[in-house]
C-alpha cells in the first residue's frame, strides 16, 4: 500500500462538512414535516374516503415507492420545469421531492396505525357523544401517534440517509461537501473515511433520541 493518509486538508475544509451535516438534517426535518402532514391526510382519505379517492392514494403510493429516488429527484428538478413554467432552486426542488417521497412511505405507516386503533375506543367515543371530528382529534389520532412512533423514527433516519442524494443537484449538504473536498483537494480517501462515520453516528444518535421520546410518550 503506497497511499499515505493526510487529513490536514479535510480538517481545513471541515466547515463544509459541519454545515453540510446541518443542511442534511434540515432537509430531512423539512421533508418529514411536510411528509407527515401530507401522509396523514392521504392516510385518512384512504381509510375513510370514497373508493375513487382511495384508488388515487394507492396509485400515488405505488408509483413513488417503485421508482428510484434519484430518478424522482431528476424528474422534479430537470423534467417538470421543461414542460411547466416553474422556477425553483435545487434545494427547494429536492425538499419537494423528498417530502412527496416521505409522504408515500408515511401513508402506509399512518394507515396501519389508524386501522390498529381499536373499535371499542371509537365506540366509547361515540357513546359519550363525541362528533366524528372530535373522535378523530381526541381518540384516534392520539392513540395512533403512539402506535406509529417507532415506524416514524425509522422513517426519519432513513430520510436523513436519503438526503445524500441531494448532492447530485449540488445542494450543499454533507455528501456534496465531501465531493467538494474530493474534487478540490484530492484527499478522496480521507474525506470518505471521515464522512461515512459521520452519517452512521448521526443516524444512530437521532434514533437514540427518538427512542427516548417514544418511551416518554408511551402509554403506561
Amino acid at each position, binding site marked *: *500500500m*503506497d*497511499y499515505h493518509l493526510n487529513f490536514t486538508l479535510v480538517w481545513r475544509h471541515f466547515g463544509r462538512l459541519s454545515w453540510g451535516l446541518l443542511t442534511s438534517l434540515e432537509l430531512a426535518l423539512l421533508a418529514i414535516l411536510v411528509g407527515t402532514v401530507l401522509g396523514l391526510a392521504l392516510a385518512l382519505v384512504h381509510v375513510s374516503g370514497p373508493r375513487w379517492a382511495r384508488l388515487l392514494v394507492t396509485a400515488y403510493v*405505488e*408509483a413513488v*415507492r*417503485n*421508482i*428510484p*429516488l*434519484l*430518478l*424522482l429527484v*431528476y*424528474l422534479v428538478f*430537470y*423534467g*417538470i420545469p*421543461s*414542460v411547466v413554467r416553474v422556477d425553483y432552486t435545487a434545494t427547494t426542488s429536492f425538499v419537494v421531492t423528498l417530502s412527496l417521497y416521505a409522504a408515500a412511505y408515511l401513508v402506509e405507516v399512518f394507515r396501519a396505525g389508524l386501522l390498529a386503533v381499536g373499535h371499542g375506543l371509537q365506540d366509547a367515543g361515540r357513546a359519550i357523544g363525541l362528533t366524528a371530528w372530535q373522535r378523530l382529534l381526541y381518540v384516534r389520532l392520539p392513540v395512533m401517534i403512539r402506535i406509529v412512533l417507532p415506524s416514524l423514527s425509522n422513517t426519519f433516519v432513513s430520510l436523513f*440517509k*436519503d*438526503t*445524500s*442524494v441531494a*448532492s*447530485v443537484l449540488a445542494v450543499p449538504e454533507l*455528501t456534496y461537501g*465531501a*465531493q467538494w473536498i*474530493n474534487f478540490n483537494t484530492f484527499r*478522496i*480517501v480521507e474525506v*470518505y*473515511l471521515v*464522512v*461515512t462515520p459521520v*452519517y*452512521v453516528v448521526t*443516524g*444512530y444518535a437521532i434514533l437514540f433520541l427518538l427512542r427516548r421520546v417514544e418511551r416518554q410518550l408511551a402509554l403506561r
Partner: protein
Amino acid sequence: MRALEAVWASVPSLLRGLGVTLEVAGLVVVLGLVLGLLLGMALAYGPRLIAWPVRAMVDVIRGIPMLVLIFFVYYVLPATGIDLGSFATAVTALTLFSASQVAEIARGALGSVHRGQVEAGRATGLRFPQVLVWVVAPQAVRRFLPPWLNSVTDTVKGSALVSLVGIVDLMQSIQQVIGRTYEPMPLYITGALIYFAINYTLSSGSRALEARFSHVRD
C-alpha cells in the same frame, strides 16, 4: 410529436441500459442472498464471538446511505491496492448493502422458528445442517420470502445510483439520451415506467406470497 420521436429513437440505448441495470441488480441479488443468508445464520445461531462482529458490521452498513457506501467503496478500495474497476466496485458496494438487509431478514425468519424444534431435531439424531434444511428452513421460508422480495426492489432502485460512478445503466442512458435530445420529461417518464414495471411486479409478488402464507399459524 417530437417528444415521441425522441423516445422512439432512444429505445436501443435504453434497452442497453436496462440490460446493464438487470445485470447489476441480478448479480447483487444472488451474491447478496448467499452472503446475507450466511450472515443471518451467524446472527441467529453463531457463538457470540462470531455473532457480535457480524451484528456490528450489519448495523454499520445499514447506517450508511447507499450513495455514500458506493462512493466509499469506489474511492477507498483502490487506495488499499484493490482495483476492481467501476462495475465490480459498484456491484461490491450494492452487495454489501443487500447482504446486510438479507442478514436481518434471515435472522428474523430463523428466529421465528422455536428453538425447541432445533433441539428436538438434534435429539432425533439429525446433524445441525440437516436440522437447518429439513426442520427450520421449510418453516422459516414463509417469513423470509415476502420481505426478501421487497429488499430486491430496494436493490433495483438502489442500482440507479451506480450511474453516478460512471456505469451506463438505465438511469445513465436516460441522462445520455436527454443530453442528446433535450427532451427530459418524456424520457424521465419512460424510465419511471420501466423501473415501475420491474418493481411493481416484485412487490406484488411479495404481497401475494404474504397472503398465501398468512393462513399458516405458528
